[in-house]
């Protein structure tokens, strides 16, 4: 137990210390006076700033973060949290303090409310309605809006618009039987998304393809799909010269962006609320489109874009630091990886620790469980069956289930990874021990070995290769699943993957995915060595002969 506590502490310090995020080495705000004063009281001046996994959310969260830092607060960044449900659950549970949200999303996706007709057309009235409903239902507070709306932009290429004479969503519905839609999973499921569009406009596309936000514009441009859901402030709408269809029946509610803050933050650090409110009404749609374009199209660093804008708004003073280096997307991929080596190293280390702790805990539980089940075979299959069912829960859903129980961050990620690792290990142990050479086990019993001796001398050694196969399977699964832990703010190599997906930055995705793949091979290789050591001597083969078990 003490060991575990130690590991956790070490883990968290490495993890948070090295949580370079996507911005890391590129930019640090000039350290001004009050930040130094704050150093002594960091713990109680800490604000956890989160975002959802798309470009604008990253950018706004980074602006919140830098603004808070300039006012002497310590910021912990948790960018790219799963989706609306995960981010909002995290806020309610107090795991995060603030993230950027949109009033329409709050109304429809969180409150499951419809717009009262009286206020439908008036964004400020909708804001007031949503804010008061959140206050009473969830005790969370919307700060005054940032000044721009980011509504859904149902977009088609100019060619498609011309061919089918599309100008409004009603036009689209009329022609929808000829069209293939590429919508984000979020949009497909939301009542202010496809569900509602079908109901209100009778939209029935020929086919609906779920697309990751990162690829939808390319998919549209390449003709793979005919219509996508974008955001009205997306930088890519202009780049691809797309036509945004008019919402002629006023289906979409207003989506005013604002900071959504937890009750605790308001009580604990009213100064942080004051600081965040400085951004209210300071960002218009044109500005946001430009900023998003710099991030999503030009590939500029989020932290730099945020800093530039805060300086332009006069909210953060000081000169530009000398460390700003233009990192164009044209530089070679290896150069890109090399530039980020420190970040990637700490992310890899954190990833490895996530895997190691979850796997070790799973071994500690599942091996004895498998052994116990061998003694109680009647309940063995049902028990292992339950663990198997856990395996079928999609990782992202399991991670989401963890939030109400355990908040966001490392702990729920560890628990989810641990749950995933149990099945292969318990199954391997049970099967291996059950099927260990029955003649040998029987003879050992007939000659006067104790059950414990039979276990330690006969069954476990003979079962070792099968148990290890289970552990190796679990390890590879865990390395993969741990990339998804980034969705609930646990960091690791999923962080650049999630960020890259959000920012449509392939290199960023690869900078997480390649080390993760290498890590899977490495972990499997190391465990292959362990397997060789524990394999009974009479069955040892050449080292790489046994194939990777998955």
């Amino acid at each position: 137990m003490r060991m575990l506590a130690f590991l956790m502490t070490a883990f968290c310090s490495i993890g948070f210390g090295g949580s370079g995020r996507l911005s890391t080495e590129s930019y640090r705000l000039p350290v001004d006076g009050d930040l130094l004063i704050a150093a002594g009281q960091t713990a109680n001046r800490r604000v956890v700033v989160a975002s959802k996994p798309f470009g604008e959310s990253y950018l706004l969260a980074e602006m919140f973060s830098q603004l808070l830092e300039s006012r002497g607060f310590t910021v912990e960044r948790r960018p790219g949290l799963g989706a609306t449900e995960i981010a909002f659950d995290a806020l309610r549970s107090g795991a995060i303090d603030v993230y950027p949200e949109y009033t329409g999303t709050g109304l429809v996706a969180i409150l499951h409310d419809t717009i009262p007709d009286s206020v439908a057309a008036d964004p400020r009235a909708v804001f007031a309605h949503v804010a008061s409903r959140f206050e009473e239902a969830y005790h969370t507070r919307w700060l005054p809006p940032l000044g721009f709306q980011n509504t859904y932009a149902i977009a088609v290429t100019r060619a498609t618009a011309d061919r089918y004479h599309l100008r409004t969503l009603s036009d689209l519905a009329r022609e929808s039987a000829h069209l293939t839609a590429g919508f984000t999973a979020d949009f497909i499921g939301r009542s202010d998304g496809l569900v509602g569009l079908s109901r209100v406009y009778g939209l029935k596309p020929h086919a609906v393809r779920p697309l990751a936000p990162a690829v939808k514009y390319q998919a549209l441009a390449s003709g793979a799909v005919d219509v996508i859901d974008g955001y009205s402030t997306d930088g890519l709408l202009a780049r691809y010269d797309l036509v945004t269809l008019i919402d002629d029946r006023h289906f979409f509610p207003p989506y005013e962006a604002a900071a959504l803050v937890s009750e605790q933050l308001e009580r604990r650090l009213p100064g942080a609320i004051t600081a965040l409110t400085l951004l209210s009404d300071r960002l218009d749609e044109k500005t946001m489109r430009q900023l998003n374009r710099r991030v999503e199209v030009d590939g500029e660093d989020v932290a730099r874009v945020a800093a530039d804008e805060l300086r332009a708004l006069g909210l953060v003073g000081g000169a530009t630091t000398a460390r700003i280096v233009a990192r164009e997307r044209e530089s070679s991929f290896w150069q890109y990886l090399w530039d980020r080596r420190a970040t990637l190293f700490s992310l890899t280390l954190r990833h490895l620790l996530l895997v190691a702790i979850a796997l070790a805990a799973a071994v500690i539980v599942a091996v004895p469980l498998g052994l116990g089940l061998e003694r109680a075979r009647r309940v063995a299959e049902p028990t292992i069956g339950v663990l198997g069912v856990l395996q079928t829960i999609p990782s992202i859903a399991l991670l989401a289930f963890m939030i109400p129980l355990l908040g966001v961050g490392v702990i729920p990620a560890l628990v989810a990874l641990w749950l995933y690792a149990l099945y292969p290990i318990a199954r391997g142990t049970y099967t291996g021990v059950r099927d260990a050479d029955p003649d040998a086990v029987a003879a050992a019993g007939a000659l006067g070995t104790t059950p414990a001796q039979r276990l330690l001398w006969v069954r476990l050694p003979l079962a070792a290769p099968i148990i290890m196969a289970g552990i190796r399977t679990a390890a590879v699964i865990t390395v993969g699943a741990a990339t998804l832990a980034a969705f609930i703010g646990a960091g690791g190599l999923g962080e650049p993957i999630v960020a890259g997906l959000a920012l449509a930055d392939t290199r960023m995705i690869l900078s997480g995915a390649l080390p993760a793949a290498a890590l899977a091979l490495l972990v499997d290789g190391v465990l292959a060595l362990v397997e060789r050591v524990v394999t009974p001597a009479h069955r040892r083969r050449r080292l790489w002969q046994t194939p990777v078990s998955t």
Partner: protein
Amino acid sequence: MFHRFGTVVALDDVSLDVAAGRATALVGESGSGKTTLLRCFNRLVEPERGEVRVGEVDVRDGSPILLRRKIGYVQQHGGLLPHWRVLRNVALVPTLLEQQNAEAVARAALELVGLDSTQFGSRFPHELSGGQRQRVALARSIAARPGVILLDEPFGALDAISRSDLQQAFDELRRTLSVTTLLVTHDLAEAARLAGEVVVMRKGRIEQRGTMRDLVHAPATEYVARLIERARAGLEALVS
């Protein structure tokens, strides 16, 4: 003794004395109860009713684990631990008994069954022939010099020549150690060769017990007579 497995009566009020230092064979068809009877001696089967005594001692006094360390046991497929070398396998019971010189004892046991301990001691079981494996199993069963050994079809899975060699080796061994032996076999010839006394079992009962000569000349029941007749017919079929 009386014992059932579920509703099947495996032992139906069987009573048997085994002479100390001699070999007794239990013969019968599959399901006759001979293996069940054998396994009552080292408490791998606990009879529902009845008792088993070795000398004056009831085997149920004390722990079955300690009992089994004092009784040798060989099964059809030797049951050697595949991941242990021969010497370690043979040293199993001496080790369990915490004998200081377990390895020397194991080497001596290997020599007794006709295996060179330097040549074979460091091999794994899968590096031996079937006959050699059964010799090792035999060595393991007598390494700690038990007073009683139980053999359950010990040579049943071997080819005829290996079986014959092993029977001879065992017969010499048994006489050297004068160990009380209970042998389960379905092979009358083997019973005749290795055991002074033969017990014919059928459906959980003893049909007849005596020397092979008694069985041949004065079969007590129709069943025994048929058994003898069948064995004889088998031999004659070979000759003609």
